[in-house]
C-alpha cells in the first residue's frame, strides 16, 4: 500500500482526531439536559427499543418461569420460616407509627414530610449500553412524566443509580457501577455516616468511604442512603458491608459494600422523587 498515507488522507485523519477531541471535551463535562439532536435520537430509538424489548422479555420470561417453578419449593420453605414473625412485627410497626404520629402532632410537625417519604414513578428498562464500559441503562420515562436529572433509581432490592440526562420520553440511568460519572451518595450504616463513591470492579463492590476512624462498623451491616444529600430520600438500601479497611492516610475507614441490587438483570425500576424539600429543589422552583 504505497499510496495509503497520502497527504490528503493524513490531513483528514488529523482533522477527525481534532473533532473527536472537541466532542469528547464537550460531552465529558456534566450536563443535565441533552442537546436537541441527542433528544431526537434518544426518543426515536427509544420507541423502537420499546417495541423490540418487550417481546424479548416475554420470551426470556417464559424460560425464567420454568426455572422459577423449580425453585418454588425451596423458596416457599424459607418464606414460611420468615413469615412466622411477620404478624408480630406488623403489629409492632403499626403501634410505633401511631405513637410517632401522635408525638409529631404534639410538636406541630405533622405537615413536614419525612426525609424518607418519596413518590414512586415506575419505569421499564428498554435498553442498555452493551459495551460493559458505559454502565448506563435507558428507561421509558422522560421529562414529560416529570423525571428530572439526579433522581434516585431503585429496584425492589435496593438502590441502582441515579438519572443522568433526560429527554422528552426517555431518560438514561447512570448505574452505581459507572466509572466515569461517579455517583456520590451520602450514606449511613447504623448511624455511622459516610459517602458511597466509586466502584471496585474486581470485587464487584461499592466503596463506602469517609467513615470516621473511631466508628464501629462491622461486617454484615446494611448500608442505606442517609437522606442528607440533596435529592435522595433516606432509607433506600444500598448493600451489605463485606470488608473494612483504612484509607491510605489512616484518617478514615473504607468499607466494601456488596450491592443488594443485581445490576445485570434490570427490568422494572422505580424512580424516586423525595417529598422533603431541599436547598436544590427550592432554588429550582424559584
Amino acid at each position, binding site marked *: 500500500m504505497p499510496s495509503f498515507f497520502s497527504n490528503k488522507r493524513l490531513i483528514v485523519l488529523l482533522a477527525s482526531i481534532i473533532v473527536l477531541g472537541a466532542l469528547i471535551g464537550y460531552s465529558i463535562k456534566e450536563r443535565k439536559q441533552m442537546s436537541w439532536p441527542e433528544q431526537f435520537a434518544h426518543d426515536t430509538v427509544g420507541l423502537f427499543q420499546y417495541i423490540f424489548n418487550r417481546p424479548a422479555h416475554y420470551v426470556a420470561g417464559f424460560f425464567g418461569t420454568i426455572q422459577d417453578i423449580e425453585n418454588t419449593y425451596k423458596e416457599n420453605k424459607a418464606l414460611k420460616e420468615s413469615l412466622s414473625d411477620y404478624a408480630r412485627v406488623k403489629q409492632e410497626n403499626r403501634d410505633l407509627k401511631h405513637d410517632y404520629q401522635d408525638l409529631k402532632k404534639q410538636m406541630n410537625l405533622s405537615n413536614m414530610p419525612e426525609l424518607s417519604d418519596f413518590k414512586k414513578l415506575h419505569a421499564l428498562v428498554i435498553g442498555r449500553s452493551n459495551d460493559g*464500559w458505559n454502565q448506563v441503562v*435507558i428507561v421509558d420515562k422522560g421529562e414529560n412524566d416529570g423525571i428530572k436529572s439526579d433522581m434516585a433509581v431503585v429496584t425492589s432490592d435496593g438502590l441502582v443509580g441515579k438519572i443522568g440526562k433526560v429527554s422528552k420520553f426517555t431518560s438514561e440511568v447512570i448505574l452505581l457501577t459507572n466509572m466515569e460519572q461517579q455517583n456520590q451518595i451520602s450514606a449511613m450504616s447504623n448511624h455511622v455516616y459516610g459517602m458511597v463513591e466509586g466502584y471496585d470492579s474486581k470485587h464487584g463492590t461499592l466503596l463506602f468511604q469517609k467513615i470516621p476512624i473511631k466508628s464501629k462498623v462491622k461486617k454484615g451491616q446494611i448500608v442505606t442512603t442517609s437522606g442528607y444529600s440533596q435529592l435522595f430520600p433516606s432509607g433506600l438500601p444500598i448493600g451489605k458491608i463485606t470488608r473494612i479497611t483504612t484509607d491510605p492516610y489512616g484518617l478514615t475507614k473504607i468499607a466494601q459494600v456488596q450491592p443488594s441490587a443485581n445490576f445485570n438483570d434490570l427490568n422494572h425500576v422505580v424512580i424516586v422523587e423525595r417529598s422533603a424539600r431541599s436547598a436544590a429543589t427550592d432554588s429550582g422552583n424559584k
Partner: protein
Amino acid sequence: MKHLKLFLVLFLLLIIEGSVMPVFLPDFQWKPIQMVPVFVFIFILFISFFLSRNLSLLYAIVFGFLTDMVYTSILGVYAFCMGLTAYLFSYLARLFHLNLFIILILTLLGISVFQFEVYMIYSLIGVTNQSFTDFLKWRLPATLLLNGVFIILFYYPFQRLLLKIDKSSD
C-alpha cells in the same frame, strides 16, 4: 432504495444490540467476563468488503454517532473508531480472495482492532479502569466467540443482500 435497505438493516441491528441481546445474554454475575455484541460493526465491515469503501465509511460514522448518542455518555468515540477501522479493513480486504473463512478471520481481526481502539480512548479519558490483561483475558475471547457465531450464522444472508443491492444499483 439502496440507502433505505442498508439503513433499516443497520438500525435493526442497533436495536438488537442494545435492547434484545442484554435480555438473552448469560448473566455472568460479578465475574469479569464481558460478552459484547458488535453486530452493527460487523455489517459495516461487510459493506466495506462487498459494496464500496465510501459507503461503509458513511454508515460507520452515522451509526457510530448514533451508538454514541443513545448508549454512551461520550460523543464521537464509536463514530471515530468504527470509521477508521472500516476504512483500514476495506484496504486489507482487497489483498485477499474473499470466502467465508477469510471473511471470518478478517472480521474478527477488525472487531479486535475496533475494541482495542475504543478501549484505548476510554481508558485515556477514564470511562473504564479495566487493566489491559483483563481486556485480553476476559473481554476479547468472549466477544470474539459471540460475534464469530453471529458471523457464521449471518454470512450468507448478509452476502446475498449486499450483492443484490450492488447489482440493483449498477
